[in-house]
């Protein structure tokens, strides 16, 4: 184990996954604080450009959920 923490860019659909992430909070589920969420109106908005840009800016992972 090291202290290294990954940086994960997360695109969440406003109508489903973003709400689910809210519900995870309401339910007080605990998960690692490595995600940075970008709210999108629909996962269809996530262009491949954004994913590449996230990696270019140092993300270790990109998660698109919708």
């Amino acid at each position, binding site marked *: 184990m090291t202290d290294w923490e990954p940086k994960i860019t997360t695109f969440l659909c406003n109508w489903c996954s973003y709400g689910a992430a*809210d519900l995870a909070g309401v339910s*007080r589920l605990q998960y690692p604080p490595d995600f940075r969420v*970008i709210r999108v109106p629909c996962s*269809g908005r996530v262009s491949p450009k954004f994913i590449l840009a996230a990696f270019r800016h140092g993300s270790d992972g990109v998660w698109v959920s919708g």
Partner: protein
Amino acid sequence: MDKCIACGLCAEKCPKKVDDLYNENLIKRKAAYVEYAQAVPLKYAIDKDNCIYFKKGKCRACEKFCPTDAINLEEKEEELSIHAGAIILAPGFTAFDPSEYLTYKYAKHPNVVTSFEFERILSATGPFQGHLVRPSDHKEPKKIAWLQCIGSRDINQCDTGYCSSVCCMYAIKEAVVAKEHAGSDLDCAIFFMDMRTHGKDFDRYYDDAKEKNGVRFIRSRVPTIESVEGSDELIIPYVNENGDISEESFDMVVLSVGLKTSPELIALAEKLGIDLTEGKLCQTASFHPVSTSKEGIYVCGAFAGPKDIPQSVIEASSAAAKAGACLSVSRNTMTREKKVPEEKNVTGDRPRIGVFVCQCGINIGGVVDVPGVRDYAESLPFVEYVTDNLFSCSTDTQDIMAQVIKENNLNRIVVAACTPKTHEPLFQETLISVGLNKYLFEMTNIRNQDSWVHKDEPDMATQKAKDLVRMAVAKVALVEPLVEPELDVDERALVIGGGISGMASAKSLSDQGYNVDIVERSAQLGGMALNLFRTWKGEDIQKNLSELIESIETDSNIKIHLDTELSSVEGFVGNFKTTLNSNGKQEVVEHGIAVIATGANESRPDEYLYGEDSRVVTHLELDQMFMNNDPSLKDIKTAVFIQCVGSREPDRPYCSKVCCTHSIESALYLKELNPNMNIYVLYRDIRTYGEREYIYRKARLAGIMFIRFSVDEKPKVSKDNDVLKIELWDPILEETVVIKADLLALASAIVSYKDEKLAQFFKVPLNEDGFFVEKHAKLGPSEFATDGVFLCGMAHYPKPIDESIAQALAASSRAVTLLAKKTIHVGGTVAEVNPLFCSSCGVCVSICPYSAPSFIEEGPFTGRAEVNPVLCKGCGLCVASCRSGALNLKGFGEGQLMAMINQI
């Protein structure tokens, strides 16, 4: 209640544990509680019947710990009197309590649960977090049985003669979902009498459950459940279809309990003076499906007969339409409108960003270093003002925020707090109140998605909050004010179809004050109902129908177009332009909305000697004989009905819904004409749902014989020396039965018109059976995903008159919500095309689910794409798919999202 911020501290500190009714008492909750995490309003309540303070006069722990002083234990019950123009009753149902059935061991054995308890067991928010275990030892069950008709179709033990309509489907669903949870090894068996899957796509679901999911279906009414001493197992003895006695053991048994009217509701009905049926349900008439016996009081949902969600939603809108019709002169007299100050133009101004960081009591502040985040925000570019608030959403903080925006001349706002899904509109209101465009705002979620989920890692949660604020600031600096264009709505309506549904819908629209054009392809109004004799409640259809036709013909708001079809449709919600064609004569009508009520047809059977022997008739032909008082009817010695003729077969796998009831009603009428007549009904499942069950019981008592057949062994009809002979295998007698009939009535299927032309005109979909596909199977049954187009009657799915009229009223109610606005506000976050970059590839046009993009037809950019902001829902699918970079999604532009990505 305004002060409660739903932090949950009161529930945490409350010492009193009580049964959790929301979870069917399978677990405990506190006396200070919120029903469930997604409850609306999300405000905690004190359960007065269980609270220690209310019982014993001391405790008040919740009051002491509440950070916002939201708890007032001195609050007294108040009596309010309300003046209203109409009342709608939507009180719902109570589930049948099976503890009175001693033989089913519900009260004694923990592994005998009701279907409602099983719903909670399956639910992720339920007592076992969605892990399928049995209550006795929390072990995963290997075998589960469902017993149908517990508290339904039973006058011996519980005095509920009706069918609860929904249990067959919910039991199948529970079995399918249980297998999804536990894997295919789980054995699920449903014990039933008749499988009543009569709704849209229900039979397909039943077939899939049987064939794809491997759910077992056993036709038997189970008399009792036996338990084994010293074991958690349950034994079900039953008589199988061949009459043999078997038994099987299960780990868990689910009782599919019926829907009942509660005693309190019966008392309320008495107080209001409204009539109930023999099943203690609200009495309504087929032609007035949501009207109670008292004027001005309407009913919807399960109180008017057990029903599923879409039918409840349909009736809810119908009741609204009826209430709206009697109050239409007072429309908009009591609603209030907000005054909005003029919007300040900030285009081109340097961003002046204000950042408000919320502590949410200790919800955020207890984990995240809020002052640290606030100070960090001050270092970010364009940030002119920062502060932190204890509760940003409170009314006084909103007032302060408005003041701060004005004093500091801020033009972009970031709030770091809870979730924008619940609170964004509130903060946007504050922006609007000081003349800022509401899109100059960004909210970032440092509670639900930060402090609440990382409570043991405060440092990293604080770092995450800082990152999120930095991302939000980067985005908000680039946002521009967006306009929400306003669009006038043409207040006229077009109804397509002059049958019962179309007429009921047109009448309802007219009653609510709108002008209607009604189009009928034939030469007269009335549609299919012209061929029908009487309803299952015994109402004369022709009498009611001619009254409806007359009310349409004498209505000055309604213009009738007979012998007319549509030849083209242009435009979109609020502004349609439709060309009508009547025998070559063209007429253009302009309208704001359209209702599709084109109905369905009776199929012509190609079996059972139909068309070859005049004694073989369809449903509708038999009704015609009834209406003509055909003298030959009295001489019939033996009449036979064959059900599911062309329905529920591989080529047409749906149920036509009305036939079982219609055949039984016809059989009873024949018995009225000649009590000595022998009558046989050959069926697969009798689907007399709801209180229709009474006529099934009546028919059995009247001596009408019911013989079941399976789709693999259908009856054989032959003609032998002019004798019409029907042979079929009787599974109970275990022998072939031969009937010589004088009349053979075929319950021929109801088929759609497969109107692809109409579907294309309005850009609405048809399903594989040719019926129109509604917006949402549960919540949008009377409208289309295409705005401004509505749906009712048999064009949606086969249904009886009462349900057709209910849906017609529902379609008109949904339409009025648009027409009453007079203008439509279009969302600001929509896609736009820069035609200079467009390469006319058409990807956006083909990919959009809402048909918003199209090709420009004239001018310098002919052939390039444009997006109709009225139709655009702002999903951004086209934007991400555009290979030329010509499309932009306002509010979620490439630059704005890239700015966020850059800051991660």
